[in-house]
């Protein structure tokens, strides 16, 4: 909310500023910078929010420029209609690029987007009949006046300026609305933690593609405006000279924020013009400024200003969740569950081979509705591998998994999640840069309203669902005792609180079966006690739970049943008392007695 105000304040200032500037050259530079802001906004979606190094993405700016130029000049479309059409056209082309490149990840993905940008460049350069080739397209109609007689906006430059500010405001509203919807949350989730996102039903590739295409659409509109502002477009707009500038603007301004792309476009968009004083040494300075910005301002100008403005920002202390109302909720009764029902999960003959190593061998068991099942065993026994197979992260070599009557063997992680299974990870896995509440809100993805029309229009149904999500998030945080930390960034939480946050995230999915991977590891005794209460309370609410744990007191006191794995084999299955007296179990844990001191 705060940044939204800042953005519109900034735009209003820029708008007002335009009246103070009378020199047409400065007006021109400012106008072009405003147009660039559309592209940085679009780039920000895929690079800043979804975190994908789409280095070739700014080429879509030029695609939009060509689309609108050709529509007006070849097909005779009205300028504003052509600009509006440039968005979807660019988005359509970007879909093809996204499909080819987003199969790769990280730097390789980045390089392929560059390759795609090069292909587009060569096509525009050589398809002379269509694009005009290296000559470019000249005499593109300028943005027409909306009305000849606006009393308060007499001259054309101001009209266009105000119009651009309004359009940019509209684009910002659009981005803002997306970011406050399941779309934005999915992008952030993919950026912050892909495996966790997948476990919450957010298919990473699909959401990257959506972000890529949405961003390209915005850039395309920007490019179209650019074409009609400067009246010319040619293939050099697709070369690295142009592409690099967009990245300087976004990173310099602050990627991943609402304000950053606008500030970056305004400041760094004008920079090359300011640097004209250096004449032919201009690139030397531009490169130097780029390197210095990256080194000295890692989160751009906006990040730097934010830190200067509120020095308090990153709390030095590690924040700890207070013991929540878990004690009051549910019957914190350590006794056995009363209502153990029919089987919810059936594992049949699951085996997993990694190269020559048999990590799991013919595992069979059932989990009944409302049960808490403990999964224990020494390091390397195959417990986490089993979890990975159940949740679709790893494909089993053999065997079958049935969940609530559906065969989920080797389904992808997001699809397993959609069936109602959620998990936590052995190594703490949260969305570190987001707040506690945002973390949990992301997890509601599967049951949120993702209809694009409802999101954009902000329909009643959409708002009602978002309110329901907010309610559920605060309910979950109350339950897990994190309510007081709702606005703290997850990375600033104590380890114990992060463990609780993981459980909270899993609960956000409204799952039926919860898999906990070493939830108590590293917790102190009071935190462990709190966790135990929470687990029991969840069981009493009807959730079925499987927990991997090394803390035996936790397992003994919480679980209805315990399965012991060793070297990939199930060596025991029974109640706490049965398991703890099993000779094979003791041997597995303490080591064999065979060793004779030398």
């Amino acid at each position, binding site marked *: 909310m705060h940044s939204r105000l800042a953005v519109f304040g900034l735009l209003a200032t820029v708008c007002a500023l335009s009246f103070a500037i009378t020199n047409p050259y400065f007006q021109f530079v400012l106008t072009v910078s405003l147009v660039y802001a559309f592209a940085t906004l679009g780039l920000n979606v895929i690079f800043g929010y979804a975190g994908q190094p789409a280095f070739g993405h700014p080429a879509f700016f030029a695609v939009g420029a060509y689309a609108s130029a050709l529509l007006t000049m070849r097909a005779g479309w009205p300028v504003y209609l052509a600009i509006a059409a440039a968005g979807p056209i660019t988005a359509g082309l970007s879909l093809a690029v996204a499909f080819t490149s987003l199969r790769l990840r990280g730097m390789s993905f980045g390089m392929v987007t560059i390759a795609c940008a090069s292909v587009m460049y060569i096509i525009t350069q050589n398809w002379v009949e269509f694009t005009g080739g290296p000559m470019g397209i000249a005499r593109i109609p300028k943005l027409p006046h909306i009305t000849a007689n606006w009393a308060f906006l007499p001259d054309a430059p101001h009209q266009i300026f105000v119009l651009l500010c309004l359009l940019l405001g509209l684009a910002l509203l659009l981005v803002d609305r997306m970011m406050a919807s399941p779309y934005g949350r999915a992008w952030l989730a993919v950026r912050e933690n892909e495996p966790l996102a997948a476990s919450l039903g957010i298919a990473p590739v699909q959401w990257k593609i959506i972000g890529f295409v949405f961003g390209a659409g915005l850039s395309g509109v920007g490019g179209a405006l650019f074409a009609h502002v400067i009246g010319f477009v040619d293939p050099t707009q697709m070369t690295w000279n142009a592409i690099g500038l967009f990245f300087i603007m976004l990173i310099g301004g602050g990627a991943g924020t609402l304000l950053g792309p606008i500030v970056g476009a305004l400041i760094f968009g004008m920079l090359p013009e300011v640097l004209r004083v250096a004449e032919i040494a201009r690139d030397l300075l531009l490169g130097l400024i780029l390197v210095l910005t990256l080194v000295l301002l890692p989160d751009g100008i906006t990040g730097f200003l934010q830190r200067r403005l509120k020095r308090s920002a990153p709390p030095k202390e*590690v924040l700890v969740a207070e013991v929540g109302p878990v004690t009051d909720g549910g019957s914190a009764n350590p006794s056995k569950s009363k209502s153990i029902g029919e089987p919810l999960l059936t594992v049949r003959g699951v085996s997993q081979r990694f190269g020559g190593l048999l990590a799991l061998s013919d595992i069979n068991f059932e989990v009944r509705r409302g049960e808490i099942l403990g999964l224990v065993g020494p390091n390397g026994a195959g417990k986490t591998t089993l979890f990975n197979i159940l949740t679709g992260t790893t494909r089993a070599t053999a065997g079958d998994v049935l969940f609530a009557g559906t065969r989920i063997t080797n389904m992808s992680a997001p699809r397993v999640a959609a069936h109602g299974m959620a998990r936590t990870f052995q190594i703490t896995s949260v969305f570190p840069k987001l707040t506690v509440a945002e973390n949990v809100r992301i997890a509601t993805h599967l049951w949120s309203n993702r209809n694009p029309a409802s999101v954009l229009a902000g329909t009643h149904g959409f708002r009602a669902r978002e309110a329901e999500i907010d309610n559920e998030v605060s309910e979950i945080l109350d339950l897990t005792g994190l309510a007081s930390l709702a606005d703290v960034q997850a990375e*600033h939480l104590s380890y114990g609180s992060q463990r609780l946050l993981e459980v909270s995230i899993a609960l956000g999915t409204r799952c039926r079966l919860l898999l906990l991977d070493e939830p108590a590891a*590293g917790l102190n005794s009071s935190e462990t006690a709190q966790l135990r209460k929470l687990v029991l309370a969840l069981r009493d609410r009807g959730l079925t739970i499987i927990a991997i744990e090394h803390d*035996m007191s936790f397992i003994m006191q919480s679980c209805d049943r315990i399965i012991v794995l060793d070297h990939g084999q199930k060596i025991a299955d029974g109640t706490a008392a049965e398991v703890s007296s099993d000779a094979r179990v*003791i041997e597995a844990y*303490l080591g064999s007695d065979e*060793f004779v001191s*030398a």
Partner: protein
Amino acid sequence: MLEISNLVAGYGLKNALQGVSLSVTAGEIVTLIGSNGAGKSTTLRAVSGLIRSRSGSIVFDGKNIFNATPHQIVDAGLVHVPEGRRLFGEMTVRENLLLGGYSRPKSEAVSRIEEIFASFPRLRERAGQLAGSMSGGEQQMLAIGRGLMAKPSLLMLDEPSLGLAPKVVSQIGEMVLTIRKAGVTVLLVEQNARMALRISDRAYVLKLGGVVQSGASSSLLDDVQIQKAYLGL
């Protein structure tokens, strides 16, 4: 020889170690035992410089090695054989050993390989084989041999028995004793508590990032406390 006091270290903002203090005297075998997540491996990683520590002190052979870089620590004669062996599986046994002696001049490393082969004849047989294609026990042997290449005065072994058959575990135990006989001090992290306590002189029990108990290994061996730390019985 190694003196750790009040060491605080961890990953990200979490402190996996919350003030660990322990010491190792020359010629000893000292073992660290404790449940998963107790901070055993983190202690070794902090000592060898793989993670940065936040506070405390680490003194080795009279030198302050707190937050020194890993190669400085290796140069000082303190070598860490990591959990899971971490061999370079696509390189041969000989190449792995050669890398183990990276801190030494090349000629010295080459002659040192012969010494390692003399103590581990099995490795000589496999010298040209890819490390990744050997059995678990052989891999562990290579990992230890690779650690010895740098001529350490103190060798830190992290879970050498992990994932090995009982018979091989006992061989590893013997190997550790042989190493000590050759004059190398050993700091051993083990999950296989019985084996570790039998071959070591002293032991520290870690829980939640701190030392909860320490003493002569023989006295800890039949202690109920240890059973508790492991099985929660």
